[in-house]
């Protein structure tokens, strides 16, 4: 029992050797944490909104909360209601069947709120661009601040997108001060 415990603590971590990204993920996460602290004051609440994705992007967003990534340590949490959210992360091209629900969800988010499009389809409609069933990318219906392309983007790419948003917000805030 004790031996198992010690092995667990000091033993070889399999995660470490198949993961070249982990160090970079941690760096990005810490950088993001600093930014979240500056922009939002400690924590960032994200509401995920699926407007017609193929579900791969949702799996990656879910993965952000699994042990390998565990983004809560950086002050990020996924919340159950748009009313609790600072950011809406939207995945998938916006289908006509979802358009009204997407609009209502956005309207339920307190302002100022931000929108991130995750995945190729959400960015510009992707392969569905000319389909009768979709409006197009998320920006057809919501004010999108940042786009994270990918089919789907990896957890690291999503984190980098979040970082990009923080930097954009900080830049925007600085400008009025200069005036």
């Amino acid at each position: 029992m004790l031996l198992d415990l010690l092995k667990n603590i000091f033993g070889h971590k399999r995660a470490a050797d198949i993961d070249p990204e982990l160090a970079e993920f941690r760096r990005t996460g810490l950088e993001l944490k600093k930014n979240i602290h500056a922009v939002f004051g400690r924590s960032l609440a994200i509401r995920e909104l699926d407007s017609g994705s193929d579900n791969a992007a949702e799996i990656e967003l879910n993965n952000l909360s699994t042990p390998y990534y565990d983004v809560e340590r950086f002050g990020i949490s996924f919340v159950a209601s748009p009313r609790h959210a600072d950011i809406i992360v939207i995945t998938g091209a916006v289908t006509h069947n979802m358009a009204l629900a997407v609009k209502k969800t956005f309207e339920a988010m307190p302002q100022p709120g931000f929108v991130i499009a995750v995945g190729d389809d959400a960015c510009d409609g992707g392969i569905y661009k000319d389909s009768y069933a979709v409006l197009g990318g998320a920006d057809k219906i919501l004010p999108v601040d940042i786009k994270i392309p990918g089919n789907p983007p990896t957890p690291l790419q999503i984190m980098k997108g979040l970082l990009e948003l923080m930097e954009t917000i900080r830049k925007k805030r600085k400008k009025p001060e200069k005036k």
Partner: protein
Amino acid sequence: MNTLGIILKQTLEARNIKCLLRETDASEDHVCIDMDSFAETLQFIISGQLLGLIAMWAAEDFEDHSGFTLFYVFENHNVQELLVLEVKLPDKSAPSIALDFPIACYFEREIKDGFGIEFEGAFDKRRLFLHEAYPDSFHPLLKSFENQALDMKPEEQKGSEYIFKEVDGEGIYQIPVGPVHAGIIEPGHFRFGVMGETIFNLEIRHFYKHRGLEKLAENKKPSDCIAIAESISGDESAANAAAFAMSLEKINACTIPERACRLRTILLEMERIYSHLGDMAGMQVDVAYPFGASMLFILREEILRYNALFTGSRFLKGIIVPGGLSRDIETEKLKDFNRYLAGFKTRFKEAFKTACDSSWVIDRFDTTGIVKHELVSPLNLSGPIARASGAAIDTRRNHPYGTYDRVKFNLPSKNEGDVLARFLVKADEIKNSVNIIKEIIDNLPEGPVLSQCSDNDGHALTVVEAPRGQNLHWVYVKNGVIDRYKVRTASFCNWWAIEHAVLDNIVPDFPLINKSMNLSYAGNDL
């Protein structure tokens, strides 16, 4: 073999009914009949009680018939080939078969939305994949409609209102849930009729994610449509890409290299492993046991990374193409994976034991969300749901494709039909998949992975066993482009099992029951 087709042909001819047996691939028996003899043919099929309806679709201007043709696919689990009944419609209506084959209700509503074909005697004539946003007269799959972005505003709801089933009585109230849910989940609407905390009725309304995939494939070169097949459902991309590619390979009589065939099996089984790991973890999340879930999430993440290492995509996208694989996987990497799997097995066993040793987990799983065995055939249930409800069926076994007739695997099955049974079946399937992969890697021949697959005209039907159950693809190529692409995922049928499984359960158990079935919204909505 053509057993089913020959029996049907002989029976029909004995009754002086004209029919035609088409020359097809050995995996399907294709019988053509007229609308006049449809009722009698159907009567024969019903009376035999040996065949279940697994799919139904329509096509416009199929081959030389101008107008609509209906296709009915029947399956007998003990016969390798599928029976396809092709019926040419003289006009825009057909008799409904939903009273004999309940699942046909959804197929018929789907066809009615797509083409405007009326089904006489149907007990449910509401629209299915077209919601209020679309005008009532809109039928996107008609050839007269050219696929294009429609100018519609979210606020304008042009179609007539969707009427839900009314459930009333003393103390009964409704809980509408969705389309936007509380977690990171796909959109869908659930309307519960509840008595106290007990679910009295559930009605599901889906198709919020309808992206028009079938129409999107039309008039495109077949080889350009693999991305469409992969986006049917992001976590079933290997299964759907393989089914689509196999359909084209059948049309072009293309044999793929042995190495590609075996590598495909590895990819398909890796997909099953990571999908089931996610389900088993999610089920534990839903009973508030994150420790047990974490052990499985860690394993899933590692498999996703091997996916990326082998194919460049964590979701196995872009590697399976008509004719084989777009790139080879180095044998060295596979051997490393084989070594990893040895450790994986032990760790998985440990994670599984952790869940099973936790009385609060088992207590919530046991006797929750029972899917009765009697539902399997009428609703055409397949995959782990069917196997957990006493039906030892698996497309890999019943209609072998690729290398599945040559690899050894068990068919786990349980009779209880509850959440626990599905949990146990999925655990067994992961172990089986690991063994299949190991066996293939140990005996993998060297050689090319891609052979030439041309773009000939024709049509072909393929069924595969995706992680969620049987997926069916039908591709019809005309003048070098896809004229009709029909996809029926396992989820399209399996979703309806949940309306029955939740009855008499409490509302807080719904997420758990839903997770244990892991149904795809994207794959259902297309």
